[in-house]
């Protein structure tokens, strides 16, 4: 891990009036050997945790973090946006008589960490009268260490010129196709550098990298008064700039341009029952919405009832409910290289791991955090706690959840050849699902008709609707490991106040029999 000066410069202390604390306050002697790349962190942690303990906390933790974010936007021959942000601060979480309290500040200094710890204690004490069931934390042990997302090239070390040139090259490639009217492209990079310390002795430093490059091609047909779009088929990754370098943008941009133009004259789908062959660039989102969210334990037990919703997978179904066909197996993890939710420890300080969610089609387990594990009789957390920034409360967020490809699964060509009448769907399109995760509707980026085992042409106006369990029980084929690919979401929303989480889903192409397809084309209102 490279050494970054997290608080570098603060000691200069040249503050403007009313804008900060006292960064030059006296440094107490750290009580533990310094495990961090920045020596200023450990003493601040000790000060906060001591203040929390002195205030009556039976448990406390502190997250100090520095979030970097950089984005560039473009359209046609223009760079429309270049922005770079840095956001630093800390949050203290305390448990007092079984009630959580949390407070946060952007001023990372000794006076403020103590004051904020005290404020968190006040909040916890004030809320005790509202506490229905005291919080219980699953044991976790003491963990000390550092970890960084394995990357080949840090996006924040790549020049703006190089990134801008890449975007303009993508746009130029798409715009060179006759009939293309517009192309916009963008890149967004995030680097979270965070330090975690708890009263149990855990001391962790992690640097997480994520990237989200994308483009959209638009073709306007003036005579018809119609426009069609096609987005990139790639998805964000938990990787550095090396992903931008490795993905074949120009091939995707050219194909996207040809697709967008061709869609004006493509056949509008006949609504009804179709067999669907869903590619990884599309199926990840269906997995995310219909398997990822309903297996969140907080949803199942009504803790998300006011916002994200509850779950049809209630706890009485664990171990017995047939969620999918026998070939359907899902594993949750936060350990896969390149996946968006991957880290070594979660924001409770729990080491990450993998575990089965669905086994041979049967729903077998949930996603959990330390304060949830006991709800279902578990004696340890699966490590699913995450907060999007220093000022947000950590809570249960989705790990990477993957559809396991059977070792002897067919190739994509074999699967298509085995399909008599179907639709091959690629890319992330429109998506919507109800608050208990029964009824969903998905679109896509491209839809190709399969007839008699062959791809015969482009379709438009396609969306499919299904019930989650009926859909996964209709899965009769999953391609083998050689077709496996990982896609994901950069901004998965949950919680109040809302927080964003990056999460990936790996899968091979899969087939679903006789799914309801509707035609979304309609006359103008």
């Amino acid at each position, binding site marked *: 891990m490279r050494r970054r000066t997290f608080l570098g410069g*603060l000691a*200069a202390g040249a503050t*403007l009036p009313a*804008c*900060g604390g006292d*960064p030059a306050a006296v440094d107490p002697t750290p009580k533990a050997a310094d495990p961090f790349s920045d020596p200023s962190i450990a003493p601040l942690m000790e000060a906060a945790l001591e203040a929390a303990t002195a205030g009556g906390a039976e448990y406390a933790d502190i997250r100090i973090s520095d979030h970097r974010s950089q984005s560039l936007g473009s359209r046609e021959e*223009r760079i*429309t946006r*270049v*922005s*770079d*942000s*840095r*956001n*630093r*601060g800390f949050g203290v979480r305390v448990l007092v008589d079984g009630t*959580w309290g*949390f*407070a*946060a500040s952007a001023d990372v200094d000794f006076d403020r960490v103590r004051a904020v710890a005290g404020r968190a204690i006040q909040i916890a004490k004030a*809320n005790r*009268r*509202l*506490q*229905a*069931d005291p919080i219980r934390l699953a044991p976790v042990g003491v963990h000390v260490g550092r970890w960084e997302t394995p990357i080949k090239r840090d996006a924040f070390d790549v020049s*703006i*010129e190089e990134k*801008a040139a890449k975007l303009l090259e993508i746009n130029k490639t798409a715009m060179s196709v006759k009939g293309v009217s*517009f192309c916009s492209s963008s890149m967004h990079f995030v680097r979270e550098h965070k330090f975690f310390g708890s009263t149990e002795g855990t001391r962790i430093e992690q640097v997480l990298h994520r990237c989200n490059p994308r483009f959209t091609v*638009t073709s*306007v047909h*003036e*005579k*018809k008064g*119609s*426009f069609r779009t096609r987005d990139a088929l790639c998805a964000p990754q938990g990787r550095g700039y090396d992903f931008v370098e490795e993905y074949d943008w120009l091939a995707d941009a050219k194909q996207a341009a040809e697709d967008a133009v061709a869609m004006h004259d493509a056949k509008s789908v006949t609504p009804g029952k179709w067999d669907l062959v869903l590619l990884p660039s599309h199926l990840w989102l269906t997995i995310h919405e219909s398997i990822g969210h309903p297996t969140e334990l907080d949803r199942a037990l*009504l803790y998300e*009832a*006011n916002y994200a919703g509850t779950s*049809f997978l209630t706890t009485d179904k664990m171990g017995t409910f047939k969620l999918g066909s026998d070939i359907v197996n899902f594993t949750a993890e936060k350990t896969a290289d390149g996946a968006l939710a991957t880290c070594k420890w979660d924001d409770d300080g729990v080491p990450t791991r993998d575990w089965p969610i669905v086994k041979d089609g049967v729903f077998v387990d949930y996603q959990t955090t330390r304060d949830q594990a006991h709800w279902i009789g578990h004696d340890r957390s699966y490590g699913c706690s995450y907060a999007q920034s220093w*000022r947000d409360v950590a809570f249960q967020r989705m790990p990477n959840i993957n559809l396991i490809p059977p070792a002897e699964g067919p190739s994509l060509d074999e699967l298509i050849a085995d399909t008599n009448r179907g639709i091959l769907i690629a890319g992330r399109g429109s998506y*919507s*699902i*109800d*608050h*208990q995760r*029964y*009824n969903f509707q998905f679109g896509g980026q491209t839809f190709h008709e399969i007839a008699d085992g062959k791809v015969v042409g482009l379709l438009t106006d396609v969306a499919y*609707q299904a*019930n989650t369990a009926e859909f996964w029980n209709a899965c009769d084929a999953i391609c083998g490991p050689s077709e496996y690919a990982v896609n994901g979401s950069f901004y998965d929303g949950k919680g*109040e*106040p*809302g927080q964003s989480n990056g999460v990936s889903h790996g899968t091979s192409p899969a087939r679903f029999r006789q799914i*309801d397809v*509707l035609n979304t084309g*309609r*006359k*103008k*209102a």
Partner: protein
Amino acid sequence: MITKADARKIVAKAIAESEADDVQVSLNGGRRTHLRFARNGVTTSGTDEHRTLSVTASFGNQSASASGNDFSLQGIVDVVRRAEAMAKLSPADPEHMPTLGPQKYVQVEAYAPTEDPEAMARGVKICTDAASKAGLYAAGFGIDNQNYSCVASKNGLFAWHKSSGAQVSTTVRTTDGKGSGWAAKAGNRLEDLDFDGLAATAVHKAETSANTTKLEPGTYVTILEPACVASLLGLLMGGVSARSAEEGRSFFSKPGGGNRLGEELFPKWLHVRSDPALKEAPVSPWTGAGLPRKARDWIRGGALRRFSRSRFWAKKTGRPVEPSGGNWHLGTTGETTEDLIATTERGVLITSLWYIRGVDPQSMLFTGLTRDGVFWIEDGKIARPVNNFRWNDSPVSVFGNALAVSKSIRPGGRGGRGGRVVVPALKTAKFALSSVSDAV
């Protein structure tokens, strides 16, 4: 929370430190306090102060922005230098516009912070007690915000705005999971929120929504409560950009070129306007770049009357600059939702819409679900609770087929995200409920 005088010093320092040809400096920050509850008890609660300094530096037509949350001198210099370094490496933008100079803004009073630190916990207890007493489970969320924003430029622009706002929502469910009711409130100040009314509505909806009977999918006369109308109005007004329409990629584009401004799409009585000084939902009298917002009619006399238009697009097309509205007000008749029900022979009443996503931008087709209270109306009365639905429809159609509206209110939203919107319940002649959702 910094003061206007602090803000003036910080932005002046940033501008003075910059060596760029042109520079725009923004400050945004504030304090938020929130409390979340479920199963009739508190779950998480917190408070934080946050702030961001953003600098956009320009050398000729080359621009870039940087931001940070360290307002010390060194922090300010760091942001300025990062913006400048990136701007020098950025390609020239042919659509670059210089920053604004001094502007005049309408007076907006939007800051009325809470004076009672116990108000949120007390209000939440009203919700959890009401649910417990009725043998139900309440979950919910309350948030109190105080915010400031400031923008200034090397060309002499300086704008400052402070605002406050509070929102609370609760979902009350029957313990057997067969009934669910939702209610939300929003206001400029926490003390203005009616927690008793909120709890009573959610408890009543939970109890009356239980044990649904099946209603087949179809297109029905539908009464949409204000929270639903707020969602759909936001979608409609989010699509009124001049550039998108004139580039041929919006519902408001015309085949062969041009736009659909003035085309009769809505009932003549439907009136949508924006006004930064709207008493129930005030917004900043300026946009992020400092453009002045003024009271505007957007839909009137059956048609869309104006588009939002950026400074560049205004210059290119020779038309006036038009900032986006910031808030929306849909005119009222003074009736109540009960009046709308009383005049409905057969139809559906929907409490809340959920998971709305675009399906076809060409026709402004969206899909979504209903949630937490759907009822069948017969002979002017609520006859029975019915199942939830997926819907596929367009806000143009919903508002275009509007039959009547009730008195306007400012509805709250989920997750404290209720917009600055003042809307009525609305009865539309047709709303397409495309399939059944088993969710409760």
